[in-house]
C-alpha cells in the first residue's frame, strides 16, 4: 500500500512537471505568435488606411475626371438584373418589378 501510494505521488509529480513544461512551451509560442500578429495588424491597418484613402469616393471621382473622358452615369434601378442559377442554367430576373401605382 505504501509503495503504491508513493508511486502514485511520483507519477503525479512527474506528470505535473511534464504538463507544466509543455504548457510553458505553448505559452511561449502563443506569446511569439501574438507579437508577430501585433506587427502584422499594424501593417494591415496602415495598408487598409491607404486603401480606404485611395479608393474613397472622392478619390475615385478625381481619378475618373483625370483619366477618363466619359462622365459617370446613374444606373436606372429598373435595369438592374438579378442572376440566379437553376438546373445548371443562369437566369436573369428584374431586381425591381414595376408596381401598379408607378
Amino acid at each position, binding site marked *: 500500500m505504501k509503495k503504491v501510494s508513493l508511486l502514485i505521488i511520483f507519477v503525479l509529480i512527474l506528470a505535473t512537471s511534464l504538463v507544466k513544461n509543455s504548457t510553458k512551451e505553448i505559452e511561449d509560442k502563443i506569446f511569439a505568435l501574438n507579437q508577430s500578429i501585433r506587427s502584422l495588424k499594424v501593417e494591415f491597418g496602415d495598408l487598409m*488606411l491607404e486603401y*480606404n484613402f485611395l479608393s474613397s*469616393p472622392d478619390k475615385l471621382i478625381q481619378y475618373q475626371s483625370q483619366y477618363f473622358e466619359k462622365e459617370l452615369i446613374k444606373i436606372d*434601378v*429598373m435595369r438592374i438584373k438579378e442572376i440566379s442559377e437553376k438546373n445548371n442554367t443562369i437566369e436573369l430576373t428584374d431586381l425591381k418589378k*414595376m408596381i401598379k401605382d*408607378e
Partner: protein
Amino acid sequence: MNEKNSQIILEEYENKFLYRKSKTNLNIEFNRIAFIFFMFVVISIIFSIQLLHLGSLKKDNEVKTLITKKNYRADILDRNGNYLVKSVSSIDLGINPTEVIDEKRLLVNLQLIFPNKNFSEIKKKLNKGKFFYLEKKISSQNFEKIMLLGDKSIKYEEKLTRIYPQKNLFSHIIGQIDDDNQGISGIEKSFDKELKTSTEPLSLTVDTDIQFLVREELERFQSIFRSKGSAAILMNVNNGEIISMVSYPDFDLNKREALKDLNFLNRASKGVYELGSVFKTFTIAAGLEANLIEVDTEFLNLEKKLKCGKSTIGEYDDKIPSDLTVEQILIRSGNIGSVRIGQRLEIDKLRSFLDKIGVLKTINFDIEEVGEPIPFRWGKCKLATVSFGHGITTTPLQLAKGYAIVTNGGFDIKPSLIKKDANHIWNKKRIIKEGISKKINLILRKIVSTKEGTAGLANIKGYQIGGKTGTAQKTITGGYSRAKVNTFVAIFPTSKPKYVMVVLLDEPKISENYIYKYRNKKGSYKGTPYNTAGWTSVEVAGKIIEKIGPILATKYMEN
C-alpha cells in the same frame, strides 16, 4: 498558586506522551503519507476545477485588457469596415537651448536633415534660450537621423495623430479631439472613454459611399439654390440606424481648425427649426390614433382664412377647395383643414401624440450636439398653428424619428449611429395602433405620385417614394422673416417602408437657370417658380434617391 498550575501541565503532558507512545512508529508514518496524499488530491481537484472553469468561460466574458495609455485612441469604422478615423503615433521634435554644447555643429547637422528650414529663425530661437519645437510630426527616417546625432538638447515627444481618410465627409458625426487626446465634439466626445479603453475599433452605422453621394448633391444644390446651409438624414425606419447624416457646410477634420463660424453648426441634429407642413402628417396620424377621423372623413365649408388672436391663418394655395377629405387635406397641404382636425383632437391628445413620437423634447442621441425644441405654452391659437406645423420647433433628426414611427407600423425606434452586434435582438415596442401606418403611407405616396400632390419632382420610378413637404418662414424676434426653411421628408418604399430621408434647405433662394425635368408628366421647366419645398428640397431629395437608390436596392437587399 503558580507552582500548582505548572504541576498540572506536567501531568497532562505525561499522559499524552504515554498514550502516543503506545502506538507503533509505522502507523505514524503512514498517516503522514496519507495526509500528504490527501492534500495533493485536494490541490489537484482545486486545480482541475480552476482549469474547467477557465475552459468554460465564454468569449464575451473574457476579461479585456484595458489600455489606458495616454497616446491611445481606438479607430472608428463605417458599417462596411472602412476607416473613418485611424490613430497613428507621430513624433514632435524640440530643442532645449540651455543643453546645447556646440551650437554651430548642431545647426550644420540639422541643416543636412532639414534643408528647407529657415535656420536664421532657428538661430534666433536658440539665442532666446527657451524650449521650442523644431519640427512637428516628423518622419521615422528623419527621426532616426536626428537620434544618431546624439545631442542631449534635442527632445522628442510622441503624440497621437488622428487621420481622417474621408476628410469632410463625416466631420459633424465624428467631431474633433484636442491636443490632450480629449474628445471635444461628435462621437469623439460622447464615446471618449470607450475610445480610450477599447481594444476594438468602434463601428458606426453610416455608409461612406452613400454619405458621399448625399453630400455631393447637397453641395451641388447649395450653389444652385444659394442656401445658407443644408442637411440630410437617411435612416432605417425599422431600427433607427442612421445610414447617412450630412450637414453642409462642413469642415476637413485633418486640418484641426478651431471652428468659430456658427454656420458650421450640425443642422441635422442640433439645428432647431419651425418646419411647417411636415407636421400635418402627425396631426392626421394623431386623429386616426384617437379614432376621431378616418381617411375619408369630410370637412365641409372650410374657410379660406381664420383669425386667431392677432394673427390670421390662411391657405398657401388659394385654389384649394372648401370641401376636403382628410386624405385631400394632407395631399393638398391644407392649413385650415389641418386646424379643424387639430381642434377636433384638442390640446391633450395632440400634445401627447407629439410627445410619444419624440418631437417635443430633446432627443437622447449618440452625439451630444442635439438641439432643444423651443418650449411653448399650449392654448387655442397654439393648437391651431401647431396643427399645420407653425409655432412648434424641432430638429430634422427628431422629424426623421417621428416619420419613422408613424410609417413603420407604429413601433418606437431610437436613432443611432453605433452599429449593433450581429446577434443584437431588436425589441419592438408598438406605440401607435396597428393599421395607422398603412393609411398614412398611402396618402404620403399620393403626395408624390399624383398631380395634386406637392412633391411630384421626387417621383422616381422603382422606389415607391412617398413624402411630405414643409415650407416655413424663419422666425426672428417678434415675428417671421422672409427667409425660409424648406423641408421634404421622404419614405420609401411606401408598400413596406424601409428608409426615411429628410432633406432640409436653410434659407434657399430661387434659381433662374436651373432646369427641372418633370417626373409626373413630360417636359421640363426653366427656373424655380416658387421658393417652396416642392420646388427646392423635393428636387434635391429626388436627385439624391436617384443616385443612392441602386446602392440601397442591391447592397442592402437582405437587411
